[in-house]
């Protein structure tokens, strides 16, 4: 099939590369000249596992890049809209990019085409897209609008796309279902997975993935509701972590206990410094606005956002209580991306924390395996970037772990200890076990667990009185 993907960001680029790998002819469109030039020149503008391989495999053959949207639509059977949908001042989704793409489509409808919204958009957007196209005197029989929300996660985008938990197709006319089914057929009939050159299968993959067909509105709601639910799961466990700290319980044990209930599940029960990224914060706000539009006050979502902000403040208080004063302190920061495995720093809690700490007069030496380039663009020049974690911690008054990169969970602790001025670790991602950190000579603070210090293993006030055996 001939596919145009408009918007070559995280979603568009991954989707385009994967569609090419499924055997389709793909034209990736973007209005960012620099990005296109980079892509054409063989560069990979984002950090995504397996993306370089796929681009190498298909670039210039089944996968081409263009800035000419009109020409791209003319040449295609299916047009995916994968442009950004940022948040407006009012907290709604800004759909102007989507609209501008939609207005360019009618003049290029030289035959029946399916227009698919891949961007995360509020319910009713597909109807708007349809209306916009019709307003430009397009023939109603020459197109359909479908919704095909994307559930990939940055960092594992390619794998998520090719091994999805489910494919959701929202349509209002039967006619376009077969087009979308054909597009995804190599996944849903399992033939892709039999290929020798398929991207390696992750654990827990469901093969072949289920495909569900809904109305466009249901599909639009599925995406917003899923993200809102996951954000709520994170905020829930963060709130529980705060209670754990107050009563001297251990949130990791609590997570084990509640996560082993199959109706809850372990995943996303990770206490930390709050969610970030380009999706959760914006999608939550947008979903909130959707509800308001419908006449509902979805205050539950306000609480989710409130806990998320509070979580950063709590972390700052933790840093303060560990270091007393902040002015002039030298802090090592491991991790700037909003989560491990990606170079994306949009709405990253790590970046926000670094900014606040700089304002408080700390000096920062930071290391991130992938996000340094992007972080340099937004952080003040006073931030030093280190080559590796060990260079970052040199002479530091404390080490802050802010992103759950795998390599941060496997540090050579002796080396870290030796390099630091004071062996204080404040771990916003619970990557280490408090007791063993104390044994290694660190004073260790984490989320939802008692602090651990080398002399007294855990702070005395938090230790429950021992059993009354034999007394």
């Amino acid at each position, binding site marked *: 099939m001939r596919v145009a993907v408009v918007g070559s960001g995280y979603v568009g680029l991954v989707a385009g590369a994967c569609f090419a790998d499924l055997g389709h002819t793909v034209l990736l469109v973007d209005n960012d000249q620099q990005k296109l030039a980079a892509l054409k020149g063989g560069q990979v503008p984002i950090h995504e596992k397996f993306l370089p391989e796929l681009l190498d495999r298909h670039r210039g053959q089944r996968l081409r890049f263009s800035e000419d949207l009109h020409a791209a639509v003319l040449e295609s059977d299916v047009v995916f809209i994968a442009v950004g949908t940022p948040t407006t001042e009012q907290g709604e989704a800004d759909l102007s990019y989507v609209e501008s793409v939609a207005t360019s489509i009618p003049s290029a409808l030289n035959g029946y085409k399916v227009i698919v919204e891949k961007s995360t958009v509020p319910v*009713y957007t597909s109807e708007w897209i349809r209306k916009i196209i019709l307003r430009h005197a397009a023939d109603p029989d020459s197109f359909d609008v479908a919704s095909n929300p994307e559930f990939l996660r940055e960092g594992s985008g390619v794998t998520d796309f090719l091994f999805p938990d489910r494919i959701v197709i929202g349509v209002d006319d039967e006619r376009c279902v077969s087009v979308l089914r054909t597009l995804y057929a190599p996944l849903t009939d399992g033939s892709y997975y039999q290929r020798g050159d398929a991207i390696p299968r992750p654990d827990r993959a469901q093969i072949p993935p289920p495909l569900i067909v809904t109305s466009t509105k249901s599909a639009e709601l599925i995406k917003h509701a*899923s993200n809102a639910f996951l954000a709520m799961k994170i905020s829930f466990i963060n709130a*529980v972590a705060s209670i754990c700290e107050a009563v001297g319980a251990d949130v990791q044990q609590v997570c084990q206990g509640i996560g*082993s209930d199959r109706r809850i599940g372990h995943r996303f029960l990770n206490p930390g410094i709050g969610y970030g990224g380009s999706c959760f914060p914006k999608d939550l706000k947008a979903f909130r606005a959707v509800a308001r539009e419908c006449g509902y006050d979805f205050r*539950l979502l306000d609480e989710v956002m409130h806990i998320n902000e509070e979580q950063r403040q709590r972390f700052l208080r933790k840093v303060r209580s560990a270091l007393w004063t902040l002015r002039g302190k030298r802090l090592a920061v491991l991790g700037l991306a909003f989560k491990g495995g990606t170079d994306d720093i949009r709405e990253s809690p790590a970046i926000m924390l670094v900014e606040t700490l700089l304002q408080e007069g700390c000096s920062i030496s930071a290391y991130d395996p992938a996000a340094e380039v992007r972080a340099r663009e937004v952080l003040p020049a006073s931030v030093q970037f280190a080559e590796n974690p060990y260079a970052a911690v040199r002479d530091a008054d404390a080490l802050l772990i802010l992103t759950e990169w795998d390599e941060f969970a496997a540090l050579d602790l002796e080396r870290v200890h030796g390099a630091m001025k004071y062996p204080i670790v404040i771990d916003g991602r619970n990557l280490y076990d408090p007791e063993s950190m104390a044994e290694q000579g660190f004073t260790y603070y984490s989320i939802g667990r008692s602090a651990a210090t080398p002399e007294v293993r855990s702070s005395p006030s938090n230790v429950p009185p021992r059993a009354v055996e034999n007394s």
Partner: protein
Amino acid sequence: MKISVIGAGYVGLTTAACLAEIGHSVRCADNDEGKLNLLRSGRMPFFETHLETIVQRNHAARTLQFEEVENAVKGAEAILICVGTPPLDNGDADLSAVANVARIVAKHATGHCLVIEKSTVPVKTGQQLKRQLQLYAGNRLQCDLASNPEFLREGTAIHDFFHPDRIVIGVDTEWAAAQLREMYRPILEQSFHCPVHPQCQHTPKPALIVTDTESSELIKHASNSFLAMKISFINMVADLCEATGANITKVAQGMGMDPRIGPAFLNPGIGFGGFCFPKDVQAFVRIASQAGCDFSLLKEVENINKRRIDRFVEKIRQELWVIAGRKLAVLGLAFKPNTDDVRFAPAIELIRALVRESAIVRAYDPQATEKAKAVLPNLDYCSSPYEASADTDAILLTTEWDEFRALDWERIRGLVARPLIIDGRNMFTPEEITAHGFHYISIGRQPAFSSDDEVFSRSKLGAALP
């Protein structure tokens, strides 16, 4: 092991009977003499699938005995506290029964014993209990304390005992951990003769999660609060579906296929009820605030839940206009199927609201009628769904009993005054019901109208389309 179980309610009696079934010698105690006598005479104080058989078998074999609390604790190696912990007016859990039991244990228990809190209690209750035991027993008694929250669900309690997802034990001595491991050994190894289904040896072994007492106490409240939150969330999304014309069944399906979310507990309806969720959420909010944390997230979960009944009444009003004087059949009283428990059941609350508006309510439930009579004595209770439906203006489905899935709709169609079904549990697809000539109103989906009534359906559908 010699085990005594204090409190012969849903949790206590189930636990006692099942522990006897896996080979322990169990004495089950209660301070309600009537209940003890009932049990001694072989009758059940409440309905729970499979329970009666297990109780009777073990009672006959004398592996399960019913006694006063004072006697039961003597010589016990393990004492499980399973008494009720209902909410006080301020939302705190009422722990007076737990405290009473502690005093009796302190006075009458002997030897080295393990006191296990199984009732759902606020975090730090274990510490209080320990102090009480020490205070009242002094040096007389050697006893350890453990927390072992119960996750069974009424209706599937026996199954849940034998095949739990996990067993959580909160301990602070090795000895306590060893005792509990021994007590649950057949369950942990899945090496028992299953009384529920004989061929179930292949079930996965449950996880044993060993924590400190505080964490274990938190796990129970946090789990129930999370599940309640899941229900309130999907109920909100269902409202959005109604407002936008989306379909909650599809939306929940699409969400539930994400393994980080999971399909369980994504069923929209008239809200969560029962003896556990409402009180545990309330208690968790209180626990948090006493620990200096503001858990407004959960207050919103409660608020959403409180509005469910009002919204359901609104749905009824939209169809019937004036509710006063209308005859309504309410099918289902228990807070969920396969139980006769009506404590904090949404159906009961709904009936109260309808009666307040002077509706004429006829109710039916396969098991819960007796229990409901205690709280709603002046209601018209029927002995079958057909009797309840006779001459009614609408049938309200309020508990998803299997029995209701297999109703003879043709027969009911002939009985009712008006063919209208308002389903608070989304038990059916709209087509299943409209095919029998009913209008079908459910949660988070568009109203569906039988083709029999064309004028009605066209006007209504027209209005429903955005």
